[in-house]
């Protein structure tokens, strides 16, 4: 089976600043793949290149076999994307948000209603279908966006820090929902996060990105096992991060990031 995502030697520069520096990796079909790193590590830039929002400076990325630079429309039709910012329309109802995106993706009229109903059921928002999004909590809004990203039945689902800003209860609810949706569909998931526990629980494989470089890539267990002189069961992903980057993730999160740079408009 071909890889769902195949990134080769990809680079993105903004003037003199290199946000992504010669990164290569592949994501197998059906995998949940995590991009782990602090703010400003280059995760969002990487994901934006894969979803055609940013053109790569050099290198290639194939998504579902389509080149992100030369076959952007084919890529867009085959992927679902949840950007980092909450982008649902607050004034529209949950159902209307999904309906507009179903139309944007050209979902046939006869299957739209059923698809939207099934998705709202999957994200447990059926009883909120007619309510304006502005009346929902942050966690519920995120679930609306996840349903919206799946409304055209994509094969690859990109989620850029889907739990950032959510309280621990909402985060756990989003993880469980993602796992359930994944188990019900033939879906490859690429998720970026800076929450170690999230990556540990959700992902089949994890790539650690720091300062635009890929510093490690393996299963959570293999990454833990790579720490010399420790049993994998006693190692946390935080310790894995320290081992590969030479600093604590909490410290890394405090550093000025590319988000503060004029090159990246919004995180």
């Amino acid at each position, binding site marked *: 089976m071909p890889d769902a995502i195949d990134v080769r030697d990809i680079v993105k520069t903004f003037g003199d600043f290199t946000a992504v520096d010669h990164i290569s990796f592949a994501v197998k079909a059906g995998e949940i793949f995590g991009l782990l790193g602090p703010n400003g590590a280059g995760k969002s830039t990487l994901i934006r290149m894969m979803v055609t929002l940013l053109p790569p400076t050099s290198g290639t990325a194939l998504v579902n076999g389509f080149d992100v630079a030369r076959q952007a429309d084919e890529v867009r039709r085959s992927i679902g994307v949840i*950007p980092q*910012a909450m*982008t649902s329309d607050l004034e529209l109802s949950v159902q209307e948000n999904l309906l507009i995106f179903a*139309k944007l993706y050209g979902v046939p009229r006869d299957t739209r209603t059923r698809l939207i109903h099934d998705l709202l059921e999957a994200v447990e928002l059926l009883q909120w279908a007619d309510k304006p999004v502005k009346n929902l909590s942050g966690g519920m809004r995120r679930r609306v966006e996840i349903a919206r990203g799946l409304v055209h039945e994509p094969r690859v689902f990109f989620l850029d820090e889907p739990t950032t800003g959510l309280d621990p209860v909402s985060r756990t609810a989003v993880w469980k929902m993602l796992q359930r949706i994944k188990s019900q569909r033939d879906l490859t998931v690429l998720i970026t996060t800076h929450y170690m526990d999230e990556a540990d629980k959700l992902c089949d494989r994890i790539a650690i990105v720091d300062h635009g470089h890929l510093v490690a890539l393996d299963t959570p267990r293999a990454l833990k096992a790579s720490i010399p002189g420790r049993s994998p069961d006693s190692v946390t992903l935080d310790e894995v991060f320290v081992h590969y980057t030479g600093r604590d993730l909490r410290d890394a999160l405090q550093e000025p990031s590319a988000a503060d740079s004029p090159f990246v408009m*919004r995180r």
Partner: protein
Amino acid sequence: MHRTWAIVERELRRFRRSPMLIVMSMIFPLLQLVVLGYAFGGNVKHLKLAVVDQDHGVPAVRIRELAGAVASGARTLDLVEYADPGRAMTDLRNGTVNGVLTIPPDFSRRTLTDNQPRVALISDNTDTFVSATLGATVNSLVAVFNAPVTVDRVASAAVLDVVEVYPYVPYIQYLLPGSITMSVFMMVMIGGGIIFIDDKARGLHEGYLVTPITKLELVAGFNISGTIKAVLAGAVITVIGSLIAGVTNPLDPLRMMRMMVVITLTAFALISLMFLLMVRVTDPLLPRAIFGVLNTVLYFPSGAVYPQAGFPGWMQVIAAVDPFTYSVHAFKSLLLKNTGFEAIAFDVLFLVVFSTVAMTAATLLFKRTL
């Protein structure tokens, strides 16, 4: 094309749920119509004219009687008698009176001897409107004074007869075309430009950009939805404004149909211009900041409040490329003269060409990536 309609549907659903947006974009042009219409529309009255009669002869009394007739008839003047010319001048400088009419001591003698009799009007020219009105009123007063007492059975002097083609047009009606254009512009700015940039800053456009929608579909979607909103605003102001301004037969179906065509073209031209200006903007403060600038640059040179013939050359150049100019001219023709399309063919052509050029440029400049 179905993606364009999805954008239009989304924008209109949001618009329907923002009643304040609708109200606010209509209140300003209506207020402007009423306030400016009544503030500038009336004739100047009750100007205080100091009369200093240093002659007291019969001809001088005749001048004062004529001035008194103006004061009690048209009420343009309120006369204040002064014995001391110095005191009158002091009051003029202090703003207590608007002008001083001085009848010199030898006025009667010169009148009776046909030896260049003169009266003097000293006016406060810091207010040109008041000064001009005083000058015209006293001039007409002197003309009546000079008219012969006996009139020839057959007049030998040439006489000008002025015939007005249309019924009297009060200033509020003259302003109405500009107010309709302004309502379209307000909705284009508030319901189009500001929302567009706010959505961009909030990341909503990122959601669109990851779908297979094309640049043209996206720009067309924004333009069509913005046009629909602005047409609604323009149509409402046309009806309410016509009733306020007292336009004859305001709901004439044929005129309304023609008005709707011009409102639609104006809305499309202005929304296309707005997208051309905003297509690369990301800062939400910018559209708010340029709102006032655009308002001034587009509205005032258009001839909406003052005839373009009085503009200096550089302003006439702005007026020539200003879409407001053609919109205001077309609305004036339809509303005040009740003409057909033949009278506004050039306006229609300009608005169509302007829209096409602006929308094409906006589409070319629109970035499909972040």
